[in-house]
């Protein structure tokens, strides 16, 4: 598949939009899915995913062909999603450190035996719950978790996509996993 993509990218660099259409077809589902899990809203996800492809097209000349196209398009898409999340950022995040405490976050403020959803959740409801918990993650953990467990990418790829050192990616995934565990442990 990568060779076909490389060939198409050469055509796109010459301005061929049909070749770009083929690339969009190949990646649209994955990019849209990442955007949806990041943003939690179909309309916003579609807007962000479309914009990601449009930016990719406009900047195709700066695409480094040694990189996988998927890495590049995911980088554009996650950056766009993070920008969107920041624009509508609430006043605080659960994992923000509570002032005056050392390493204590809002998660620890939530009573661990908060009323639980019924044990037997419909699959639909379960999906919804998981999605909501992913959306509660701060964007930097959310992007790492989505790429790792929704897209099932390797830590190295995630570090390339997010343009972060491997160690930072690991830390973010650990924190994200920990936060999700606390929220989902009784599901």
């Amino acid at each position, binding site marked *: 598949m990568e060779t076909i993509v490389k060939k198409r990218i050469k055509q796109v660099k010459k*301005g*061929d*939009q049909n070749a770009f259409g083929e690339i*969009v077809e190949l990646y649209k*589902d994955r990019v849209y899915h990442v955007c949806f899990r990041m943003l939690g809203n179909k309309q916003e996800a579609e807007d962000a995913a479309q914009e990601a492809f449009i930016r990719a097209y406009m900047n195709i000349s700066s695409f480094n062909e040694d990189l996988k196209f998927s890495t590049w398009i995911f980088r554009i898409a996650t950056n766009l999603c993070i920008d969107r999340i920041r624009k509508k950022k609430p006043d605080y995040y659960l994992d923000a450190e509570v002032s005056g405490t050392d390493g204590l976050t809002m998660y620890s403020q939530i009573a661990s035996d908060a009323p639980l959803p019924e044990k037997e959740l419909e699959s639909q409801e379960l999906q919804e719950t998981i999605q909501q918990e992913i959306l509660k993650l701060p964007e930097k953990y959310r992007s790492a978790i989505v790429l790792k467990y*929704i897209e*099932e990418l390797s*830590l190295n790829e995630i570090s390339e996509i997010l343009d972060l050192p491997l160690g930072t990616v690991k830390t973010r995934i650990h924190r994200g*996993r920990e936060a999700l565990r606390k929220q*989902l442990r009784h599901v």
Partner: protein
Amino acid sequence: MKCPEQIVEWMHDYLDGDIDREDQQKLNEHLQSCKECEAIFYQLKKTITLVQGISQIKAPPNFTENVLARLPKEKKKVSAKRWLQHHPVLAAASVFFILMIGSLLSTWNQDHEFSVSKQNNLVVKNNTVIVPKGKVVKGDVIVRNGKLKIEGEVQGDVTVINGEKYLASAGHVTGEIEEVNEVFDWLWFYMKKTAKDVVNIFESNKTEK
């Protein structure tokens, strides 16, 4: 009992798939002896399974079309090139057509000399062809790059290419009169003539048979 933080680190290393054998050994030993950490470890694994199990969703219909519609207009050159690649027969035809037009145009350019169809009773003075008064010219008269003055009668069509025609009041033409001055008129005339010639060839073949 407060467990060392190291334990949770090891759990994550394990989940990332990069724990070394020694640490894994220690982790296993601890998990067997500590219910609390075992529960955390179980919850972490369950969390991952839950998140991984979230259903895949597809991009909405017409996604690609919508993206392409929002791109800036493609350069003409590119679309023309792609069109040629996708329609080789039409491409060959258009090349043929261009060559044909080219050769016709070069014929036009070479064709600046005065000439006139040969018929009895036609009088030529400088670049003017005269059908004299009271005389009858039989057949089609064609004048190129010159004037035609008709004072007598032409029994046939008259064509003046790149020139002028003067029909005196006493003059008479039984067929059609045509003046061709522009390149495209001329092209059209030339193509009609070629078509007629082709038809004539076929018809004369038929009559011969």
